[in-house]
C-alpha cells in the first residue's frame, strides 16, 4: 500500500525546490526559506503564466506564511521523500528545521519530470530557488545580517509590493491574494516584462530567456529597494 500526499501539487513544488538546491550542492532549505521561495514564485508567476497551485498566504510574524506548505513538507518527511534536519528545538511550538531531498524524493522528481507540465513548473521553481540562494548569499555578505543562509531571503520578501500592500492595508493574519490581477506585484511584473520585451537587443531570445531575465530584474528590484531602505532607515 502507499500513502499519497494529500496535496499532490504542493508536494510536487516542494520537491522541485529541494531538488534544485540539491543539484547546486547548496545547503538545505530552511523552513522559512521554503515558505519565501514559494511566495516569490507565486508573486512573480505572472512572468510566464505558470499555473501554480492555489496556496493561501497569510501575513505572519516573519512575513507571508502558508500552512499548506508546511503540512506538505511534513508529510513528505513522514513518507521519506524529504529529510529533515532540526536546527533547534528550544521553542516548544516553533522549531527551526532544514530540509533536503532524499533518494526516494529524487526518484519521484525524475518521474514527475516526465510530464511536460511538471517540467515547466520545475523550471520555474528551480529558477526562483537558485536566485533566492544567490541573493541570500549576497545579503549574507552584509555584516549586520543576523540571518543565516536562505533565511536572508526574508529581507527581499519584505520589499514585495503585494506583501507591503497587504501589511499596510490589512491586519495580522490577513491573507495575501497573489492571484489578483490588480495587485501591485502583478502590475510590476507586467511592466517589467514589457520593458524587457521592448529591449531591442533581446529581441530574438526565446521566452524562457526573457522570463529568466525578467525574474532576475525583479529580484534585483527587491534587492535595490532593500538597500535603499537600509540606507534611509
Amino acid at each position, binding site marked *: 500500500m502507499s500513502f499519497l500526499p494529500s496535496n499532490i501539487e504542493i508536494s510536487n513544488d516542494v520537491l522541485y525546490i529541494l531538488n534544485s538546491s540539491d543539484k547546486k550542492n547548496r545547503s538545505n532549505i530552511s523552513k522559512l526559506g521554503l515558505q519565501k521561495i514559494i511566495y516569490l514564485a507565486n508573486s512573480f508567476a505572472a512572468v510566464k503564466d505558470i499555473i501554480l497551485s492555489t496556496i493561501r498566504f497569510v501575513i505572519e510574524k516573519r512575513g507571508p506564511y502558508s500552512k499548506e506548505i508546511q503540512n506538505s513538507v511534513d508529510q513528505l518527511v513522514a513518507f521519506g*521523500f524529504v529529510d529533515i534536519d532540526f536546527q533547534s528545538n528550544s521553542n516548544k511550538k516553533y522549531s527551526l528545521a532544514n530540509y533536503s531531498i532524499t533518494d526516494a524524493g529524487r526518484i519521484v522528481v525524475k518521474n514527475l519530470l*516526465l510530464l511536460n507540465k511538471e517540467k515547466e513548473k520545475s523550471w520555474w521553481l528551480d529558477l526562483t530557488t537558485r536566485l533566492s540562494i544567490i541573493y541570500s548569499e549576497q545579503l549574507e555578505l552584509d555584516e549586520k545580517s543576523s540571518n543565516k543562509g536562505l533565511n536572508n531571503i526574508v529581507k527581499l520578501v519584505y520589499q514585495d509590493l503585494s506583501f507591503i500592500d497587504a501589511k499596510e492595508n490589512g491586519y495580522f493574519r490577513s491573507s495575501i491574494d497573489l492571484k489578483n490581477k490588480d495587485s501591485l506585484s502583478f502590475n510590476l511584473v507586467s511592466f517589467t516584462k514589457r520593458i524587457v520585451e521592448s529591449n531591442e537587443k533581446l529581441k530574438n531570445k526565446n521566452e524562457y530567456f526573457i522570463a529568466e531575465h525578467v525574474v532576475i530584474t525583479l529580484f534585483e528590484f527587491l534587492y535595490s529597494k532593500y538597500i535603499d531602505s537600509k540606507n534611509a532607515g
Partner: protein
Amino acid sequence: MNLISLPEISEISVENYSLFKEDFNYKFKSGLNLFIGANGLGKTTTTSLIIFGLIGFTSPLDKKFKIDTDYFASRATVDTDISPPSVEIIFSVKENKFSVKRNLITGDIIHLIFNGSDYDINEYDDLILLHTNISDKLDIAILLEFLLIREEEGNYLLWDFQQQSHILQILITDIKFRAKYQKAFNEFSSYAIENNHFTDTNLSKPRKKLRELEGLKEEALKSKKSSKSVQDLNKELKIKIGKKDKLISEKKEVIKTIEYLISTLKKHEGDEILISAEQSRISDKIGDYESVFFSGIYIDDRTKSIYHKLKHYSICMFCNSTLNKETTKNIINKVERNHKCPVCESGLKKEESRKVDVEQLAIEINELEKEFNALKKREEKILEITNKKRIEIQTSNLNLDRITFELNEISLDILEIETKLKNLTSPEDKLTDYDIEIRLIKKNILFFEKELKNRKVDEEKLKSRITKLNNDLTKQVNSNLAEINKIFTNLSKLYFNESCRLEVASKKIPGTSQVRDIKQAYYVPYFDEKMRTMEKHCSTSQRIFLEYLFRLSLLKFYSSKVKFPPFLVLETSEGAFDLSSTKQLGNSFVSFKNDPLKLILITNFSKPDFLKILAKGTKSKKSILNYLDFCRLNNGQLEDIKQYTQIITDVISTK
C-alpha cells in the same frame, strides 16, 4: 266725387258737472253763435265737451289728442253719490239724427238715440263711421280737434303741412281717398324700411365679410405661388423615390447579411460547445491519468517497509515491539479494509491495485496535454471569430436601425411632396381654406340680391301707388285752390289784406329717405308779395287772422260741395289784436250771420266792443250763451260780475 259728411251739431246739454253751477243746455243756430264768459269759467272745457260728446276720450286714440280719461274728472270734484256728470250732444249726419249722452267720468255712453230710436251704445262707433263715411275714428278725432274746433292757443293748419294734408285728404277728396292714401303710404313706408333692414342684414354685412375673405384668399394664394413649381417638385420627388428604393434594397441586403452572420455565428457557437465538451472530456481524462500517475510515482518505500514489517512480521519498526496477532490484525484491517490512517484513524484514499507504467502514462498524459492545448488554441481562435461576428451583427443591426429610420423619413418627405403637387396641379384644389366660405357667402348674396330685386320691384309698385295717390291729391289741392281762394280772398280782402291769397306749396314728408321724395301739397298764405310758408313769416295777430280765415274758407268751400253744412268752433283771442284789427275780425265773423255754416265763437269780456260787433252777427238772443248764468265764479271774479253783466246786457240790448 263723394265727400265725407261732417256732423252738424244741434244741441249740447251738460248735467251734474260740478264745474258748472247748474246744468245747462244750448241749441246751436246756423250762422254765428256766441259763447261768452270770463276766463276760467269752462269755455275751453265746453269745446272738449263737444268733442267728447261726439267721440269720447281722444287721447287713447293718439297721444297728440288732448282729452284723456282724467280730463273732466280733474276739472271738477266728482260726487259719486248722485248721478254721474254727463254731456249730451244732439247732432246730425246728413239726414240722420244722433243723440249721445256720455258719462264724463267713465266715457261710457249712457244712452244713444239714433233717428228717434234707442240704439245699442256699442254700435255707436260703427254707426257714426258709417254715416259720416269717415274711414277711421282717429280721423274723426283729427277733424274735431284740429279743424272743427280751435281753442285759444290751438294749432295752425296753415303751417302744419302734415296735419293740413291729412285733413285735406279726408275733407276735399273722395271718401275712400284718405284710407287709400294712408294705407298706401304706410305700406310703402314700412316696406321700404323692411327692405332697408333686409339689405342691411342679408347683404351689407355679408358683402363686408366677403370682401374680408377675398382679401385673405388673395394673401393665401400669393403665398402658394411663391412655393416651388410643379417641375421642381417632380424632380425632387423622383430623387426621393430613387433614394427610397436604394434604401429598401440596402435594407434587404443588411437583413440578408445579418441572417447570414447569425447562421455562421450559430455554427461557430456550436463548434465552441463541441470544443468545450471535448476539452472537459480530455481534462477529466488527464485528471484521471494524473491521479493514477501520481499514485504510481509516490512510491513510498519507507512506509511500505514499516507496513510490510508489521503485516508480515508483526513487528513495529518504530519501537521494535512484537505485536500479537490480534493487534496486528486490527491495525491491518484499519488500513486495508476500513481505509483508515493507523495513526489518527482518518479516512484514506483507496489504493490503486494495479501496477502503473509511469513512463507510458507520462507519454499519454503529455499527448493529452498537447491535445488540450491545441483545443484551447482553437477555442481562442473561434472565440475571436465569434466575438468579431457578434460585433458585426451588432453593427449591422445598428445599420438596419439607421436605414429603417431613414426610410421612414424619406417616406414622409415623399408624402409631403406629393401633397404639395396635388395642391398645385388639381384644379378644384386651387382652393384655399376660404374658398368654401366665399362660395357660400356669394351664393347667399346672390339669393338675397335676387330677392331684394323682387322686393324692390314691389317697393316701386307701392311707391308708384302712393306717388299716384299723392299726385291725385296734389292735383285736387291745386284744382280746389281757385275756389277756396275765391272765398278766402274775399274774406281777407275785406278784413285783412288786399293782396292776401292762398297758394299751393309742397313739402317733403320728413321721415325715412324713401318717402322723402313724396311731396305733399298744402295751402300757404301769400300776401305782400311773399309766400308765408313759415309761422315766423307773420306776426301773431296775422297768424291768428289767417288761420281763422283759412278754416272758414275751407269749411265754406266744403259746405258748398255738400248738402249739409258743418260747424266750426273758434275761441277768439282778441287780446292779440289791436282795436282796428279786432273790428275787422269782428266784421269778418259777422259776415257769417246768414250762413248755413254754424260758426260758434267763444269769447271773453276783455273787448266789449268786439262783443258788440259780434252780437250784431247773431240772429237772436238765443244765439248767445252766457256763461255767467250757469258757471261757478270764484271770489275774485265775483267782483267783476257786475261789470260782466253790464257788458252782456249791453250786448244783448243791441238785439
